[in-house]
């Protein structure tokens, strides 16, 4: 979406957007016409919410970093589960029963 549309929907000012991009909190991938994507917008909402919850400029990058790690881990684990499911029945049972017994 365009920068102006983004600013309006995310309820932020131009300089705030610039600061966020500069700090690496947002990583727009688009060109000038289609600068920011839906995921950037969702992330901007998250940053606004974190602000509202009392997180400050020092703690927000820590939280974002942890959330991104969490999603990466979830994705990897899910991939792992899919791979496990592709194994022969007895291998699968062995792996899974091993996990849940812990």
């Amino acid at each position, binding site marked *: 979406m365009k920068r102006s549309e983004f600013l309006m929907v995310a309820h932020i000012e131009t300089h705030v957007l610039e600061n966020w991009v500069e700090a690496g909190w947002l*990583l727009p991938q688009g060109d000038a016409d289609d600068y920011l994507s839906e995921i950037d917008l*969702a992330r901007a909402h998250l940053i606004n919410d974190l602000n*509202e919850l009392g997180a400050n400029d020092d703690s927000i990058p820590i939280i974002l970093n942890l959330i*991104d790690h969490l999603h990466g881990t*979830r994705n*990897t684990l*899910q991939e792992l*589960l899919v791979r496990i499911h592709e194994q022969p*029945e007895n291998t699968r049972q062995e792996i899974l029963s091993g996990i*849940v017994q812990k």
Partner: protein
Amino acid sequence: MAIDPYKILGVEKTATQDEIQKAYRKLAKKIHPDLNPGNKKAEEQFKEVASAYTLLSDEAKRKQFDAGEIDGLGAEKPRQNYYRDYADAGTANPYTRNADFGDDNDFFSELFRRQGNRGGGGGEFKMRGQDARYRLTLDFLSAINGGKQTITLPDGAGLEVNISPGCRDGQTLRLRGKGQAGIGGGSAGDALIEIKVAPHRFFQRVGDDIRIDMPITLKEAVLGAKIKVPTCDGSVTMTIPKGANTGTVLRLKGQGVARAKGGQGDQFITLKVILPTAPDAALENLIREWKPTTEQNPREPMGV
């Protein structure tokens, strides 16, 4: 059913703005969907808390609510998707490196649920299929009139989509069970289809109304006429009143866009008087002879 934002936040009616903010923060820290990526219920709960807070944190709105002028829904916050919907979905994501597998179900909880009702070796698990995201570009009239469209999926199969009349640009349609197949007997994911609507050569949509610029000849403008006007589902004959002018707006009631809750918008026609494209000697003579009954200076409002 009346919604009580004080109850939702767990504060007294006499609470100060500071207490309200504290109560909101305490709840939101626990239930914000992005801090609970695997919990689907968090979204509903958070929506309630956030809209209660939006209402009570605005002193003017809070006064209106206390006076009974607006209800507890008066300030519901229209909310975009949460970050987790993207970070956890199978779309390319610059913020995380492992973004290839998306799922709406929480697979952690799948693992632990299995632990609960494990029979023998406990090797079975169910997982809901991934949601699949598609984009569909509609031409303007297909979006207005609705109808069936077919999306070609990456594997070459076709997916039929029913477009209801009045479909909007940016709208997302959800086809239940049309996403990826589930695993181990789990239900299939959904297909999410984002609609883009292409612009039209002369129709323009404004809310539920259709706007169109309609060229008419000088003769039709001066003497009035019946002309054919295109509408989104064909054309109608309409009367141009005598003395119509450039900028005159006429309305065709009920010829606009179908509304989701029934009824239909209108079509507005803005007239544009067009002189003959080639010089016309007869017209020139006529105008030279023409003596206006009242002299008029259309530039008067500009002071010249």
